[in-house]
């Protein structure tokens, strides 16, 4: 069976299982067949992509063209295969997870749940199409298909106004992004006269100005999809609104399509991008990382928080890619390769742990019926498996060794260091990137200590949290799988690719030492005894859950440090009776700087124009005739 046939079979499996789910009467069976089919197809795709990845040479498959003026083809090279593997891996995990998770929509009897498998499978298929497209038009078709299907999934709970709003913001953002991509590609088309990516790569662009313009538009387009600062505003709206498996898929891989586009554009399509391109990209990555993680720290909504972390991780990936391009331009191919590898590896890693975290968040959400972490707590007791998996994901995303988040950042750091050793402008860029990466890492650490601490540790803050239990196998198994992969990918690469086997020795030493110490502790406790008692309350003996440290208080010191850029709005209301304080209300809110400072004012300005235009349509025929007269006169004056 040749690759084209195999690709066809995979696509067909997605489509048929999705369509079948629409017609099956039993919701349970519909879920199993729809998502199960998706999982099978993803599994097949994953195996195929991995096998092919080891074999090497790129694959070209001609496609029937959607429009007659261009030939359409799939072009699957190493980069595509890597992204395909990521898509299929996360697709597999989240499909299995969805079988369990989507059960909660069964009881509603609204029949919308049956559309979910089809949309889900279509989304996966479209993403696969995006990364395998060999020409601009197939790319765009896949891209827009991906945007649309994911839009429908975001508004899946369309009865909620919040979901509709999120979907709208998402769709508009992604549409503007598509506009940017169109412009970028068309500028290349103008120079090369062809729609095929091959042609782009082989004909040099006329001048740096056009290149810069094309690159700027590409950044707008792909950056919007990726959630790059300052085009990230859709992301924290859309990801929380979607059902959790969809969030996992969107945060895990869909935003990576933007990364794919940038890599494809910068390293394959533009002939020799100047240093500045990479520097700009890395700079934007740095800003995404820092702002993403700061906003995440300020969040109490679990899924929104994770969404902001996607912004942060996209920033990290962009730092890697941008620095790689800068190194390439400055003539340091070695560090460039390391950085690119690190960035791409982080794509995979982020896909894994973000998928894991969203799945965990979904399980928590289902158990506690809230997304507000201030109402959770102590879930480790009732949901130990979810808790362990979530902890693994948190360690990974905080780049704590020996998990995979560290592995990719390690590669990036090495590349940055080796590139910076050469000195010059490049060193300034790379050292800034390094410092930023370190700061981002530290901030992400704060955030995940906060999340794990408030959600899983301590005492429950609500009744629902104290009664929470682990979900069924369909949801636990993919989480366990993802957690295992997070740990494995933190160790294996050092053995295989990066040749830093010293790291593995350290990990082994670490495990052995901790193991020894834990056993020492256990033996000692058996001898000396262990007493369980109340938490020490500074002499106060009736500690209540309300006295626990909250997530907001936890985040406060660091937010205070960054208050200059975050601009929190606080509201304080006191009610006094005489000199006694009866009641104190204190509220603080951190809004998105760009959402409130740029996009909303722009929108209001636009609305003012619109209302002005509306006033021109008064309904008076005299005025309307006057418009015609005025037009004629103006034209006669101007266009003789």
């Amino acid at each position, binding site marked *: 069976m040749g690759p084209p046939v195999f690709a066809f079979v995979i696509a067909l499996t997605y489509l048929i299982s999705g369509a079948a789910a629409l017609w099956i009467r039993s919701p349970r069976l519909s879920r199993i067949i729809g998502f199960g089919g998706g999982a099978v197809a993803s599994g097949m795709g994953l195996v195929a992509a991995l096998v092919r990845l080891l074999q090497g040479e790129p694959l070209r498959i001609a496609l029937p063209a959607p429009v007659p003026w261009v030939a359409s083809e799939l072009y699957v090279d190493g980069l595509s295969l890597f992204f395909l593997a990521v898509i299929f891996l996360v697709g597999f995990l989240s499909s299995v997870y969805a079988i369990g998770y989507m059960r909660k929509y069964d009881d509603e009897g609204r029949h919308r749940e049956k559309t979910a498998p089809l949309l889900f499978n279509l989304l996966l298929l479209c993403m696969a199409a995006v990364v395998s497209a060999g020409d601009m038009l197939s790319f765009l078709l896949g891209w827009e298909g991906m945007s649309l299907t994911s839009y429908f999934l975001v508004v899946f709970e369309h009865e909620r106004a919040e979901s509709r709003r999120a979907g709208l913001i998402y769709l508009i953002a992604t549409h503007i992004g598509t506009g940017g991509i169109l412009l970028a590609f068309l500028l290349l088309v103008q120079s090369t006269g062809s729609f095929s990516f091959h042609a782009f790569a082989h004909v040099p662009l006329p001048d740096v100005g056009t290149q810069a313009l094309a690159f700027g538009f590409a950044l707008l387009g792909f950056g919007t999809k990726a959630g790059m600062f300052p085009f990230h505003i859709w992301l924290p709206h859309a990801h929380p609104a979607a059902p959790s498996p969809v969030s996992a898929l969107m945060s895990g891989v869909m935003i990576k399509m933007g990364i794919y586009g940038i890599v494809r554009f910068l390293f394959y399509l533009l002939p020799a991008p100047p240093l500045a391109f990479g520097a700009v990209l890395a700079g934007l990555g740095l800003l995404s990382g820092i702002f993403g993680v700061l906003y995440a720290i300020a969040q109490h909504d679990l899924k929104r928080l994770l969404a902001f972390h996607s912004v942060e991780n996209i920033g990290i990936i962009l730092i890697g890619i941008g620095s790689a391009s800068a190194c390439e331009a400055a003539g340091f191919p070695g560090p460039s390769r390391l950085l690119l590898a690190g960035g791409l590896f982080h794509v995979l890693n982020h896909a894994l742990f973000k998928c894991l975290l969203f799945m965990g968040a979904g399980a928590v959400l289902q158990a506690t019926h809230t997304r507000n972490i201030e109402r959770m707590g102590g879930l*480790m007791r009732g949901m130990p498996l979810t*808790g362990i998996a979530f902890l693994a994901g948190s*360690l990974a995303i*905080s*780049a*704590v060794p020996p998990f995979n988040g*560290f592995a990719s950042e390690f590669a990036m*750091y*090495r590349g940055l*260091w080796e590139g*910076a*050793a050469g*000195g*010059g402008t490049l*060193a300034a860029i790379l050292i800034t990137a*390094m*410092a930023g990466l*370190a*700061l981002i*890492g*530290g*901030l992400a*650490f*704060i955030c995940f*200590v906060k999340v794990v*601490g408030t959600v899983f*540790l*301590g*005492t429950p803050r609500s009744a629902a949290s104290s009664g929470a239990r682990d979900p069924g196998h369909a949801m636990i198994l993919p989480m366990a799988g993802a957690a295992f992969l997070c740990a494995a990918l933190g160790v294996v690469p050092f053995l295989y690719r990066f040749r830093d086997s*010293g*790291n593995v020795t*350290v990990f082994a*030493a*670490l495990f052995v*030492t*901790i193991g020894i*110490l*834990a056993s*020492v*502790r256990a033996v*000692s*406790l058996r001898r*000396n005894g*262990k*007493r*369980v*008692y*109340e*938490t*020490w309350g500074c002499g106060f003996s009736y*500690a209540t859950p309300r006295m*626990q*440290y909250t997530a907001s*208080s*936890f985040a*406060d*010191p*660091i937010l*205070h*440090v960054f208050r200059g850029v975050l601009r929190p709005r606080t509201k304080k209301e006191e009610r006094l009776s005489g000199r006694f304080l009866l009641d104190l209300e204190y509220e603080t809110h951190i809004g998105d700087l760009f959402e409130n400072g740029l996009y909303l004012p722009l929108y209001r300005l636009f609305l003012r124009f619109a209302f002005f235009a509306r006033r021109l349509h008064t309904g008076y025929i005299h005025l309307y005739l006057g418009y015609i007269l005025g037009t004629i006169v103006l034209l006669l004056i101007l266009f003789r």
Partner: protein
Amino acid sequence: MELALQIPAYLVLAPFLVGIIRKAKAFLSCRQGPPLRQTYIDLFKLFRRGIVRSRTASWVFDLSAPVILGTSVVLAGATPLFSRAVPLPMHFILYIYLMSLPRFFQTLAGLDTGSAFGGLGSSREATVAAMAEPALLLSLCGVGFLGKSQLLDGMLGGIPPGRIFLRPELILIAGTLFLVLLAENSRIPVDDPATHLELTMIHEAMVLDHSGIDLGMIQLAAALRLTVFSALITGLLFPGSLSLPPVLALPAAALKIALSGLVVGVVESGMARMRLSRIASFLMTATVLAVIALAVRFAR
């Protein structure tokens, strides 16, 4: 032989360093102070005790002490103390990031008990650590450029011996590292290890609910980490001390550690505790120092 001795040497020197600091501080405030052996006695006692454990705590709490101490031991294995070779050669990035593993468990353990103090300490600790991260990273990165190696032992060993005062970048980096040492090891002016008021605590607040062997492990780990930092800085300032003959090496190491203990003691006595909100500026200063050091390095 030397390699096998390194970790035991660290374990021995760690309480010694804490004792030296206490002694120095006592001396400067005209007190007698506890004898040097007191720290050893305290630790020994703690290790022999059972524990009182909070009802709300989970396995994360139980695991925290071994993880914290274990990681510190591993870090000690990677930091040259008396020779260029170390039992565990480690990349400097891994070295820095490995420090976050015990911190993760320590802060989580602080939150795990459901106590307000634990959360308070964890929150502050995490904030300080995040702000210290760039400074630490940049300074080690600079050391790497000087020593032309990415491995910790390699970079320290690779620094060409010479007149230290002719190398401003080295001094700047050592200064940065010292500021980071103060911050990361809960010393004045960032934190006060001797405070008894919970509301002002950082590190101590997190470990309020640890007792017995757990507390012992954590205290040993803290002392170990301080020693590791001291070894790092002194190794940087006295590169020659790493290539001494074995007979001299151990006393020299003890001397180095004692010296840094004295300096820390003097600094702690001479400074007041900073307001929490100022810590960020303190650490940003450190970062800027590191950046200047790098700039100086590349300006050559």
